[in-house]
């Protein structure tokens, strides 16, 4: 039986706070986010299957958490939709050339 790889949850909401997944596999409060963590999250979106808990203002009580969680979740949603096209643009570059010379 083929085991389907489970999407990685990278954003979640718990006890009125927003959390993101850091590179050590821990969920960290979103007000601790720095640029390297954001780069890591984008990397995951591009290279793996990810899922997030949808932003819901009523579930997050802290204003700072609301702002950051909202921006990150929006970005991830947009990127998830466009990533196939973006990656295909990269992978089709030189595809003709490779095809021309393949065995």
């Amino acid at each position: 039986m083929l085991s389907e790889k489970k999407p990685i949850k990278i954003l979640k909401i718990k006890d009125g706070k927003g959390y993101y997944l850091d590179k050590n596999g821990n969920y960290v409060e979103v007000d601790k986010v720095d640029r390297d963590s954001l780069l890591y999250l984008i990397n995951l979106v591009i290279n793996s299957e990810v899922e997030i808990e949808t932003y819901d203002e009523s579930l997050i009580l802290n204003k700072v958490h609301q702002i950051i969680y909202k921006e990150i979740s929006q970005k991830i949603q947009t990127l998830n939709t466009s990533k196939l096209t973006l990656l295909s643009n990269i992978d089709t570059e030189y595809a003709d050339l490779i095809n021309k010379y393949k065995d």
Partner: protein
Amino acid sequence: MIKIDFHIHTIKTDLDSAFDFSLDKISEYVQKKKINAIAITNHNLFDRANFDLIKIHLKDVAVYPGIEVTLEGGHLIVVAPFTKIEEFEEQCKKIHDEFKEKNDISLDFFMDIFSNHEEYLLIPHYDKNPKIQKFILDRIGSSFICGEVCSPKKFIRLYKEKGTLTPLLFSDMRMADDIPLLNKQTYIDTDSTDFYSMKEAIRDKEKVYINDKKKRDLFPILDDGTLASSGLNIIFGKRSSGKTYTLDRINENFDNVKYIKQFDLIEKDKEAANKKFDESMSNDRSIYSDEYLAEFKEIVNNVLSINYKEQETKLSDYVSSLVEFAVDMDNHDAFSKVPVFSEQKFEYVIDKKPKNIIDSISNLLDSGTYEKIINKYISNENLIKMLNEFVKIHREKKREELICKQANELIDKIQRALSIESSQNAIPSFDINQYATDVIKKNLFVKIADIIKKPKLLLENQIGKFKIVAKREPFGSAKELQNFVGKKGEYSSSYNLYDNPFDYLNSFEDKPHIQKDQIYKYFVRINYQVLNANGYPVSGGERAEFNLEKNLSDAENYDMLLIDEPESSFDNIFLRTDIVDKITSISKKIPVFVSTHNNVLGGNLNSNYILYTEAVNTADGTMFSIYGGNRENKVLTSVNNTQIKNYVVMINSLEGGEESYVERKETYKNLKD
């Protein structure tokens, strides 16, 4: 004997400069030059309608279908017999379409389309540019029986050279109303203009000529059939006997001719002569200077395009914001305390190397002619492996770039959203990489601007007894700078900054009458002058001598040199010591015609051939007769077979007649005794 021209253009293609085809002109051409057979050979095109029109119009001439193919960069004429015209038309259509798409025809494609090429006449550009590459001659060598040359001299050389193709000389003319009709055709020793008879005759080198008298070293220079040597020809004749007229006609009948006309190099008006010389020197100086300063110009313009003031302000804003942010740490609110609030974006430098390497590998794989050489060192298999690896690297880099871009967008959005709520100002973004690159550019500019000011001899080019010298020197004063710029204004404030290239550069930016793209010229003075044998700048008379030397120095780039009475402008000593040898040497490479009645030139130039012009008054007005023959011949003969004694021509032309020659000889003898 029949006369042919198998290289004629009648339709403007992308490879031609603009011209309007004239049916009258092609008609005039075949009549005036008495041509028996032609081929219409447009670039990568055979236009049936155009061909039919010409064929119907030129009833007395055999008109053959042809095409000039751009084959692997070189040019190849293909001429077909009438019987094959339908098939030929189809083949040419394919060539036309392929050329339209690829701008060149590969040998494989050509062989595929013209698989029956042995039935046609193939004429490669042989000693004519753009030449057919050697590998093509090697590969389909047996199908080539002849090759096109660009000048009579090359025709004669190729005829004499063993193991070469039969040379053919054609006009390669664009048939438009305003063109001169060239004397570049080939004679074939056969009676018929039938395709196969002509092809068979061309197969034999001994059956092609460039004149109808079957003389191997001579070629026709005028429409009446007057011949001349492909070496050195001297034109003698009394005043107003038609020497200049003859040179003018020769000039009309050939292309790529260097014609030094009488008094061309000397002005009777001293002031005008000086002005002309100065203008010519200024032009040469400007060309040299532009070439020398080309790279410096690029650096200067690059630095000018960067707004360093704005960069400094941004850097300063960035630093003060950072300091402010740090000092005010206690007053930070929850929004500004988020780490990403004060962080800079990722600076992603695009690495162009993998892309360049992929292009290079792709070039190696597509090397065509050179594939064998490349495969001697590296196999296609390894090249393909390498290609795959670099494409992989390139894609990885692109992914990294994409991720950074997306992360930066997110950082920007979060910072904006937080700063709306925060009482703290966000730290402005500042591209430190870009700033560093710009500073490096500026430092490089300063370094080169300092070097370029140091005096140095740049060029020392000997032309005869003269020397062209170019030196670079710094501007010595504000006045000197102002004279050079040639525009009114105040230059001392700029000049005061001359030792500080960056400030000096900026000082010109405020001057409204200064063109920004000319500023690079104001860093160094390029001194360009002609010096005489003693190392001094040339004076009045010497300038004309230099002009002649300069004109002769590049004459070999032409197909023919004509000089009309150089003795009108120069003294005998200069002609004998400086010019005679030079003209003789040029005539070894291209045909030279010198008209003269000067005994220094006539006597010292070791000419191959003599042409004597004579004005004859007839009922129809003045006609010019021309007699020709080798220098050692007793008699010179005209095209009508009338003759004149060579001795009489020489003594009359060079010595003013026998009587004055004897008298002068006697005087010298008496003086000596």
